[in-house]
């Protein structure tokens, strides 16, 4: 049986996930299939037999892949199959509705010298939205067999596919890149002497993109000749380090655009033009910035700040807790617990119930809940990739690029997690700058919600806070970009289509995130309450507050504000809840409230964020960021206090 399989011609199905590969596989093979893990991996590969024109073929269904340059285990396995299984024909299955996004991989497969047959699947859906695809023109341009089909419904195209496989004749086509890139490819590929399944042109491009598996294979095959190849690759990578990946991607996009010219026609009136137009508006600075301001105003300020931090918190904290729960629990404890220390621990100033539970349930949870709803709606609409394109130019000025939008927007949810995500940025320079800006000027959702809620009651205060935050973010980012050495990678990404958020999806995501957040903060709030209680009883807290008092005086704040800063070091949201208490107790005037809000937002990252900073960037960078952030927070707070007192604008 195994010998028979070895002798059979192999048909390998490749393509992105969800393009109907498995349907094609089942249609070709019927029920005679086996599913097994690919050797040495946990990735499943399906194999089956099929008869075409009295000839038996072995069909392999590979895991979904987006490119020949693998990122995931599934993609690595799919590529390994192409490298090791000697295909008779590689059927690249693509979705007719997303030709432009998927054709670059067809180009890669052809470029690799593989025997490619292109199956443009899901044609029925494409036609339903008014798309007409000229398959014969595409075939003429690509110079490989191209079949249009819809194998999911009615098996349209199945017989054409079987005929094309039966009559398949491999052809060699080369798509030419820009002159300088061609020179680089030529220089390196001519140095390779070994025999390879993939073309040397394709291997060169993967070597230039530092594909470790390909480096290893070339090294094994070239032996002593490899040093020359490696030198040539290193020289080219160094010379074109800034934009090599981008250049290759853009060149492929350029070729695909040329190939698709005249291939796709869109019937007027059936096209969802508004979604496309709206998508363009979000990325054009003239329309994109007003749209961004609208998103921030309604999504964050009105929904999170006014509704979440105002209406819901007032109801839970001021209504349920202050009027019903607190008096009942405090009364019960005073009646049945005779020990002062235990009363204090449970229902005292920093009690587990009166501080820990109240902060977590009545103040923080409603704010992060409304924030997560707004976040999920924006996220599911497909707005974030467009925001990345919109801010790319500004972010380049501060040493980042559009890619940094991901950690920045995640930072509004939780700065600790966002600091972990900075590792996805390409250069160390970007990671350091993004970590600094997250620690300094990106408030977490709970902190931002409390601050928006409190400041919205003071005319002008919110604008002052906003100007300070944006100003510090841009100024510090700009200065950091001048000081921190390193590369400046380019940014390029595929823009997925805009979508209408689904209510169920938004609710599931919100509840999932709230569950995670609550499970994370609740024990920490309890621990912080116990520490503060111990500090109060031992006198250590009073000593700490005394230590902070001179700084509070410099900032023009009352001594009681020290507590909010101490709480803020445990967690940003804990400090924000402390600020909420100060304001509701009437301890702050408008200027003090604004200064406290600005300083607390900029103030040191919480313990968890600091520990992650240390783990991701090392002790030296983490400590430098810690001291820079602390110094800046108090300097800005002091300057703002002086400015507000002098001008009297609040």
């Amino acid at each position: 049986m195994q010998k028979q399989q070895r002798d059979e011609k192999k048909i390998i199905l490749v393509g992105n996930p969800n393009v109907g590969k498995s349907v094609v596989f089942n249609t070709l093979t019927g029920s005679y299939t086996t599913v097994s893990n690919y050797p040495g991996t946990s990735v499943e590969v399906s194999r089956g037999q099929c008869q075409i024109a009295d000839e038996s073929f072995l069909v392999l269904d590979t895991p979904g892949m987006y490119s020949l340059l693998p990122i995931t285990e599934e993609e690595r396995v799919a590529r390994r199959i192409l490298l090791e299984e000697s295909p008779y024909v590689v059927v690249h299955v693509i979705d007719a509705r997303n030709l432009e996004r998927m054709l670059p991989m067809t180009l890669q497969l052809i470029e690799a010298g593989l025997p490619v047959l292109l199956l443009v699947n899901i044609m029925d859906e494409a036609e339903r939205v008014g798309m007409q695809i000229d398959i014969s023109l595409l075939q003429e341009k690509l110079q490989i067999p191209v079949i249009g089909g819809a194998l999911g419904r009615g098996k349209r195209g199945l017989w054409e596919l079987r005929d094309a496989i039966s009559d398949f004749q491999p052809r060699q086509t080369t798509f030419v890149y820009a002159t300088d890139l061609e020179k680089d490819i030529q220089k390196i590929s001519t140095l390779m002497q070994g025999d390879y399944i993939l073309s040397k042109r394709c291997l060169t491009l993967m070597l230039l993109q530092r594909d470790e598996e390909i480096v290893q294979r070339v090294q094994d095959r070239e032996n002593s000749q490899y040093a020359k190849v490696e030198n040539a690759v290193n020289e080219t990578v160094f010379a074109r380090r800034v934009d090599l990946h981008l250049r290759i991607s853009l060149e492929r996009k350029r070729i695909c655009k040329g190939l698709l010219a005249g291939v796709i026609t869109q019937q007027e009136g059936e096209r969802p033009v508004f979604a496309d137009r709206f998508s363009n508006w979000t990325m054009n600075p003239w329309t994109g910035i007003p749209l961004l301001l609208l998103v921030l105003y309604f999504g964050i300020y009105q929904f999170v700040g006014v509704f979440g931090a105002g209406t819901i918190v007032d109801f839970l904290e001021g209504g349920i807790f202050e009027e019903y729960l607190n008096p009942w629990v405090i009364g019960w404890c005073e009646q049945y617990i005779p020990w002062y220390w235990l009363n204090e621990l449970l229902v005292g100033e920093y009690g587990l119930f009166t501080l820990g539970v109240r902060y977590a349930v009545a103040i923080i949870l409603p704010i992060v809940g409304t924030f997560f709803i707004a976040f999920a709606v924006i996220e599911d609409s497909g707005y974030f990739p467009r925001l990345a394109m919109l801010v790319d130019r500004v972010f380049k000025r501060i040493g980042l690029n559009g890619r940094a939008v991901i950690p920045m927007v995640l930072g509004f949810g939780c700065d600790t997690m966002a600091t972990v995500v900075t590792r996805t940025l390409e250069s160390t320079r970007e990671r350091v700058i993004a970590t600094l800006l997250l620690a300094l000027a990106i408030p977490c959702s709970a902190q931002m919600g409390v601050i928006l809620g409190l400041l919205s009651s003071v005319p002008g205060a919110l604008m002052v806070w906003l100007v300070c935050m944006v100003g510090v973010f841009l100024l510090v980012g700009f200065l950091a970009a001048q000081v921190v050495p390193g590369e400046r990678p380019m940014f390029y990404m595929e823009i997925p289509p805009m979508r209408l958020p689904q209510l169920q999806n938004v609710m599931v995501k919100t509840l999932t995130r709230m569950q995670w957040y609550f499970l994370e903060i609740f024990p920490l709030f309890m621990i912080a309450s116990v520490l503060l209680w111990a500090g109060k009883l031992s006198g250590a807290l009073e000593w700490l507050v005394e230590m902070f008092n001179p700084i509070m005086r410099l900032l023009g704040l009352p001594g009681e504000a020290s507590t909010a800063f101490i709480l803020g070091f445990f967690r940003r949201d804990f400090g924000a809840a402390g600020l909420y208490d100060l304001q509701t107790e009437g301890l702050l005037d408008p200027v003090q409230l604004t200064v406290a809000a600005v300083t607390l937002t900029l103030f040191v990252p919480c313990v968890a964020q600091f520990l992650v900073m240390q783990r991701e960037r090392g002790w030296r960078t983490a400590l430098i960021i810690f001291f820079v952030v602390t110094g800046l927070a108090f300097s800005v707070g002091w300057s703002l206090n002086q400015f507000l007192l002098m001008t009297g604008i609040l």
Partner: protein
Amino acid sequence: MKCAFCEHELTPEMLRDEGCGACIGGCRKIHCPYCGHENPVVSEFLDKLLKGGKDKG
């Protein structure tokens, strides 16, 4: 499941063992390997709650 940022397909196998350590009981998010975006994974508890015990027995 698709990444909410770049729309690349994600599989539960991509759920990282190594997280930031903040999640009690391990990381409950899939960090998309293509763009880095953090996608929440619905917990078993919440999944059961949302299905209202439909798949019992």
